[in-house]
Every structure is written in structure tokens, then in C-alpha cells.
């Protein structure tokens, strides 16, 4: 802190007094995008160090489910639904389940203090972590989708749609996971909710919808991962109806925006007690 001599200031001695009494200048604030990029990078490296085995588990789980379902479904639409559901299940496992666990533990152990005492926008912390977890699912999802196509003899032509499905379903599920983790009063509860969310994605996303009772189908419509599954499944057909694909993806996007906003709010609430 330096006091500027009176003679260099046009505003006379009063200005000097102002300078003295004024509160000290605040340090810089981290801006949203650079902070988000820094959190994303750190979280991705964290996930790589600590979560690689879990990604294998997620992928093998999905592949296992497809192999089991091969004896049950009779090709066609049902096969498409199984492949799409199993692929999105990898996203649900990592983005919903693991992220809920992570935020639950971070909050319980006082780890949020670290972020809360840095001048970083809450959205950067939540979006950075959600983005990293969603990106972390890419290899598992792609491997599952390719394996499924081979197994059920589905066309590879429109697999590129995963470029949209992973980030949008990822946003919706990661936002949900982060919100659950940050809102759960205890870490065990966060883990439990994450597990339940994933089980729901498994049962409601992978099993063919038309064999379900009405109530279950309604629950299925409420689950954000369903729309990712539907969008992806539609693209296996000979003439995909792109308007419906876009519609499903738009639902994912909207749910993603809402759940990430809720997660950001939950973070802000959890950070200052």
C-alpha cells in the first residue's frame, strides 16, 4: 500500500485522506473460463490417477450386460436400445455415480474449503469437475458402442452422433451427480444416491421399454439418461428421423443446464456454512 503524495493529485489533501482510509485493493478474481479450464485439467488428471480401474469396471459391466441380453432380445429395435442403453450406462456410472461420491466426500472432509477460499466462480468448480468426469467416460462409451455394434450386427455409420450424446447426456448426468453429492447431508447418502441413480439408468435404460409396465415407463421418461439412450438408439435405423434425435438431445441439454445450475447453487450453499 502506498500513499500518493498530495502534490501529484489534482484533488488536494482530501484525496490523500481518502486513499489512506480506503479499503485495500482486492486481489484479482479468477475469470470463469480460465478457472474452468484449470479445474477441468486438474480433475481430469485426478480421474486418470485414481479412477482408471473404475472406468474398466464400467466398460466391462456394460459389455457384460450386452452379452447377457443377446440371448433375450431378438435383434432389430430391441438390440438398438440395448446397445444405446449400455453405452450411456458408462456415462451414468462415471458422471452420476462417481461424481456424486466425489462431491459427497469432498464436502464431508472439508475439501470444499480449498475452493471456497479461492476467488473462483462456483460454476467453474462444478462445470470443470462435471466436464472432466464426462470426458473421462469417452473411451469406455466408444468401446462399448463399437463392441455392441459388432455383437448385434448394427451399422457403424452414425456412431459419430456420440460426439453429441456424450457431452449432452454427460452434462445432464454429471449435473445430477454433482447436485446429489453436494446436497446429501452425509457422504454415505451421496454414495447411495449415486448408486441408485446408476441402477435406475441400468434398469430403465437398457431393458427394452415396450416390455415394461406403465408406471415403470413413466419413471423411465423422468430419467435424463433415457433421452440420451433414445437419441442414440434412433440413429441405428436405416433412415434415422433426425428431428426426433435432435429433440431428444435437446431434452438432455435442457436437463443438463438445469441440473448444473442446481449443482452450482448447491456448491455455493455447501461452501459457506
Amino acid at each position: 500500500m502506498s500513499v500518493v503524495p498530495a502534490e501529484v493529485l489534482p484533488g488536494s489533501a482530501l484525496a490523500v485522506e481518502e486513499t489512506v482510509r480506503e479499503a485495500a485493493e482486492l486481489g484479482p478474481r479468477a475469470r470463469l473460463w480460465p478457472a474452468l479450464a484449470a479445474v477441468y485439467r486438474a480433475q481430469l488428471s485426478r480421474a486418470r490417477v485414481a479412477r482408471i480401474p473404475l472406468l474398466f469396471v464400467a466398460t466391462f459391466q456394460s459389455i457384460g450386460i450386452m452379452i447377457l441380453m443377446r440371448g433375450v432380445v431378438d435383434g432389430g429395435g430391441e438390440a438398438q436400445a440395448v446397445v444405446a442403453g449400455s453405452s450411456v450406462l458408462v456415462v451414468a456410472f462415471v458422471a452420476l455415480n462417481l461424481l456424486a461420491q466425489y462431491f459427497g466426500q469432498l464436502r464431508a472432509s472439508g475439501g470444499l474449503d480449498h475452493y471456497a477460499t479461492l476467488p473462483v466462480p462456483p460454476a467453474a468448480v462444478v462445470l470443470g469437475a462435471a466436464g472432466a468426469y464426462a470426458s473421462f467416460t469417452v473411451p469406455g462409451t466408444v468401446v462399448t458402442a463399437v463392441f455392441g455394434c459388432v455383437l448385434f450386427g448394427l451399422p457403424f455409420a452414425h456412431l459419430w452422433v456420440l460426439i453429441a450424446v456424450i457431452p449432452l447426456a454427460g452434462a445432464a448426468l454429471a449435473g445430477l451427480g454433482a447436485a446429489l453429492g453436494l446436497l446429501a447431508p452425509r457422504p454415505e447418502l451421496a454414495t447411495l444416491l449415486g448408486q441408485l441413480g446408476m441402477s435406475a439408468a441400468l434398469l430403465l435404460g437398457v431393458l427394452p421399454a415396450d416390455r415394461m409396465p406403465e408406471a415403470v415407463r413413466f419413471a423411465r421418461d423422468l430419467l435424463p439418461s433415457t433421452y440420451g439412450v433414445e437419441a442414440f438408439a434412433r440413429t441405428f435405423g436405416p433412415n434415422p428421423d433426425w428431428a426426433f434425435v435432435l429433440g431428444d438431445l435437446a431434452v438432455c441439454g435442457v436437463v443438463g443446464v438445469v441440473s448444473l445450475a442446481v449443482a452450482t447453487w448447491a456448491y455455493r450453499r455447501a461452501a459457506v456454512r
Partner: protein
Amino acid sequence: MCAVRGLAKTYPAVRGRRGVPATPEVRATDDVRLDIRRGEIFGLLGPNGAGKTTLVRQLTGLMRPDRGSVEILGHDIVRHPERASRILAYLGQESTALDDLTVSLAAETTGRLRGLQSRQARAERDAVLDELGLTSLAGRPLRKLSGGQRRLACFAAALVGQRPFLVLDEPTSGMDPVARRAVWGAVDRRRAEHGTTVLLVTHNVIEAETVLDRVAVLDRGRVIACDTPTGLKEQVAGEVRVDLVWRESAPLHVPEVAALRDRAVESGRRWTLRLAPEEARTVVATVTGGSAFAALDDFTLTTPSLEDVYLALGGAARQGLVKA
């Protein structure tokens, strides 16, 4: 530069659930008043559960006090808790947010989140790791380091992105003497070059005596004394501590020794006495001469330490301040 007035925080009582016993309400900070001056190393000393962390969390905007005010460098932290992060760097007791990162990435990311440009963050990261002797560990994840190394890495992260006020909750716990010196060296350099102010929570009485400019002693949420370490010691300067260790048992047949028994705190072969300086001299003369000497194994005469100050001030934890 940091003024705290009438600060109070009570943790609410928790009703018991199945398997979880109820906890009563805890007044963790109770009408605390502090003034920390610019450029000083100010210590908070007190036993486990005295409320040091709770107090510090209120100063850093992490916890909203029930009552009272906190002003840091002219900013009202109770009304604008988010400003704290732009004034101070906080090293908490936990490191979970950084555990899975490498030392280097932890420091760099923290710098980025303190608003540094990426080139600047990398440069400061390298300088701080070098300063603290962490360069050789830069590529290792924090989780795989020893407790003291991990603590030092977290301290490094707290230093990247200069702040005028450092709030450190037991920064040197678990560190060896080399790491401790690196920490105090780094703090001193920042103080000399930038006039950095430090608020330090500690249990270590020796550290408190050597590094602190002033110290507040906290007990059950209240500040029971606040002065320089020397000033605090002067409050009990009338007393000297005499420790007598007998070979087998005290020679009670010596009348002078028998007369001391009432005033001694006995623990096995050891007698501890708090005496006026002249009295202490007489006692030492008695036990080192004549027939008592044959029964004496060892004796020490010590001027009061901060630990004695704490005990003399009536701290709740009679066992003293040093963690077992």
C-alpha cells in the same frame, strides 16, 4: 489490518439418532476480540477443541459468525465473505481437495484459481517449489507423499499467487526440522519483501516462542490472554519451575525436603515445584548439599515457558498445550 470484535459462534446441539449419540451445543468462539497488525506473525495457541479452527474459518469467510464483526484491510468479511478469498490465502487442516494431484499441478492450479495467468502461475509454481525444496517431488501425487511432505506441498499451494495475509492452520504439523525451517524462511522472506501478515494456529509452544510476534491464548472459545510471548511470560515471571528427580524416593527424613512436599506436584520419582526465585535458590542449595543430595538423581531449574503461562492462566486442559 485485521480487527475482530465480539465474534461468537455456537454449534447447535444435535439430537441423537439410532447409533449416533446426541451432542450438546458447543460455544466454539465466545466474544472474541483481536487486533492483528500489518506485517506481524500472530499466533493462536490453545488445546484441542479450544476453537482455533472455528475462529479462523470465520475470518476466512468460510463460516458465518452468529454475532460480531471481522474487518480485514478495510473490508467487512461478515457482510462480504467472498472478498476474503481475494485478500488472504488459507491453509486448512485438511488437504483432500489436492490429494490426487501431483505437487506441481496442485500448486499451478491453485495459482490459476487465484487469478494468475497461466504463464505467471507456472513461473510462481516453479519458484515456490524451488524455495521449499519440493522440486524433486514435483511429479508425485500428494496422496503418495509422507504426512510432512504433503503438508509442505499444501503450504506451497497456499503461497502461489501472492496475498497480503496468510492464514495457516497448523502449517508445520508432522514436519521435520528441515521442512519447518523452509516454511519459516518462506514466511520471513514474504514479510520482509511484501509486509505479509500471518495468522498462525499452532500447538507447538517452542515454535510459538520463536516465530510469533504476538500470541493470543484461546481456551474454550475465549481469548484468555493476548501479548508478545515475552510479555505473557512476564505475567508469571514471579515464578520459577524446579523439577527434582529422586533416585528412589524423596528423603523425607530431611526436614527441609519434608516441608516442600505439600507444595510439590508428585509424579513418580519427580517433584515439580513453582517457587519465587529466591525460594528456588534456597531449595536448590538444600538438595544439592547435605544428606538430601545422596537421594537426588537430577534437578532442573526453568524460567517460565508459554506452557507455564497457559497453565497459570487457568486453561482447561491441565496437561498443557503440546500434543501428545
